[in-house]
């Protein structure tokens, strides 16, 4: 992308970026621990991925390649405007192919293709605090984390089990990171939770409104919270096939054909789907 030279590289001033990088290092040193940071004003409203954007802007270099996705899609309005903001203030190359990207900023999904050790996935987080529904006060939840006291989160899961027959949440199902901190994985589908466990890549989580950064460094143990007699299950995607690329065993968006009323499936990861179609449906085939 063409860089607009009226702005500092990656929009933020160097001091701010350095400060955010320090918070990121702090977060990497304590997997799953929420590190406060001085969230900056951006030409984008808070709650629109500003936490993720600030992380990306702080770690990106001129030679990096960037991919931005929203709910799996590279083309949504949100993804496009974030890509434009970071792209025009850095001039970096952008891509839709997750294998080509050095940094991927995402909301609500982790790409289908497993990420490598040289890649960073930045996830946008609306609510970083898994204990928020247990207690509204920051000083209380901080103490509960300190003591590893997560009874309240388990009670909420038990309540879900009692009311619905399953303790599993549809999205943002809490995880225990490195056996220590319970963490919101951001509103990714449960389908993506296992991708956090012992991954090769670095995961960074940014919450702009709540001013928190946290991280899952490579090869960290990440377990979804489940009762002993209620094993963790991903959403069942078996027997489904992408109507565009024919992929199976990926996470699908589901919709109804208005004309025929037929139920259809399509890869939620649009970059993955596009790549398969371009390569004749051969990429990442088991």
């Amino acid at each position, binding site marked *: 992308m063409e860089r607009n030279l009226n702005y500092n590289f990656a929009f933020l001033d160097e001091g701010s970026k350095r400060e955010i990088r320090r918070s990121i290092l702090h977060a990497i040193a304590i997997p799953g621990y929420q590190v406060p940071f001085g969230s900056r004003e951006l030409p984008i409203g808070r709650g629109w991925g500003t936490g993720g954007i600030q992380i990306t802007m702080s770690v990106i270099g001129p030679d990096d390649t960037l991919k931005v996705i929203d709910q799996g899609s590279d083309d949504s309005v949100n993804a496009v405007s974030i890509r434009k903001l970071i792209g025009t203030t850095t001039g970096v190359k952008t891509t839709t192919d997750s294998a080509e990207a050095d940094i991927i900023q995402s909301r609500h999904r982790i790409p289908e293709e497993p990420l490598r050790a040289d890649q960073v996935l930045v996830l946008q987080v609306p609510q970083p605090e898994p204990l928020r529904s247990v207690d509204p006060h920051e000083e209380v939840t901080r*103490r509960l984390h300190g*003591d*590893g*006291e997560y*009874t309240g989160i*388990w*009670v*909420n899961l*038990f*309540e879900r*089990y*009692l*009311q619905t027959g399953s*303790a599993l949440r549809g999205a943002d199902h809490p995880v225990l990171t490195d056996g220590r901190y319970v963490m919101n994985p951001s509103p990714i589908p449960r389908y993506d939770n296992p991708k956090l466990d012992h991954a090769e890549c670095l995961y960074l989580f940014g919450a702009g409104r709540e001013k928190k950064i946290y991280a899952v460094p490579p090869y960290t143990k990440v377990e979804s919270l489940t*009762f*002993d*007699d*209620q094993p963790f299950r991903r959403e069942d995607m078996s027997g489904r096939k992408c109507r565009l690329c024919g992929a199976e065993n990926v996470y699908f968006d589901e919709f109804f054909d208005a004309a025929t009323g037929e139920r259809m499936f399509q890869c939620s990861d649009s970059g993955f789907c596009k790549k398969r179609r371009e390569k004749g449906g051969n990429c990442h085939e088991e």
Partner: protein
Amino acid sequence: MKNRTPVLEGSHITVRFGDGCPYCREHTELEKGRCPVCRTIWAVRDVSFRLYEGEILGIVGESGSGKSTLLKTLYFDQPATSGDCRIARYHDGQKNIFDTSSQQKRYLRNHLMGMVYQNPILGLRMKISAGANVAEKLIAAGNRNAGSMIGRTEELLQHVEISLDRLRDQPRYFSGGMQQRVQISKATANNPPILFLDEVTTGLDLSVQAKVLDLIRSIQKELGIAMMIVSHDLSVIRMMSDRTMVMLGGRVVEEGLTDQIMEDPMHAYTQTLVNSLL
């Protein structure tokens, strides 16, 4: 009397709200426990007691005499200003439980104690089901098996005569008596040796009151839990407790077998209390 080893022993427990001043440190008998100079409230002042295995210890006293504050302090809802408290089943009574880490305090609360609060809002989360409220104690004690917790929760609720079709209902839709019964289920979920009950029947209809008290009696007989029962109502204390402590202005002014106190009250305040019963 039963076995004479105290399950819980408090010594010189003081809880004050405010910093105190030379005047109130000097004068222990303050009107309503409040210092006229610095306005510090000495809610609990130099209270010592022993709770024996399987007994019911009643605490009676007027409003503001420090009854709730004492129980909340023993249950770690409220820090003690000074004093010492020991539990026989915790390090053989060799450790002051006020001087332990917050994790140790949680362990004690969840395994060795139960609390039924005067105000059910303090004891129950009103917007989750009765079942999950009871299960909270099981979870806090480390249970992670959903099936076994449902079984135990049903058992506990049945025991206090809450029908199982209310398991998934929120306690905010329950009557006062039902809320207290859910609190009792929760407080006894891990079979603790010690149970604190703070004005469990206050505000309930007389007939409901009698039912709840009967229930507490039967649980006490069945499980042999030692109980501290607080009430400003001497008739409740007379009905329930083996021994009684009378509090006034944060201090214990009289203590003894309940029958003895009823027949022959020593302190002037106790005398007025007993006379008002007649």
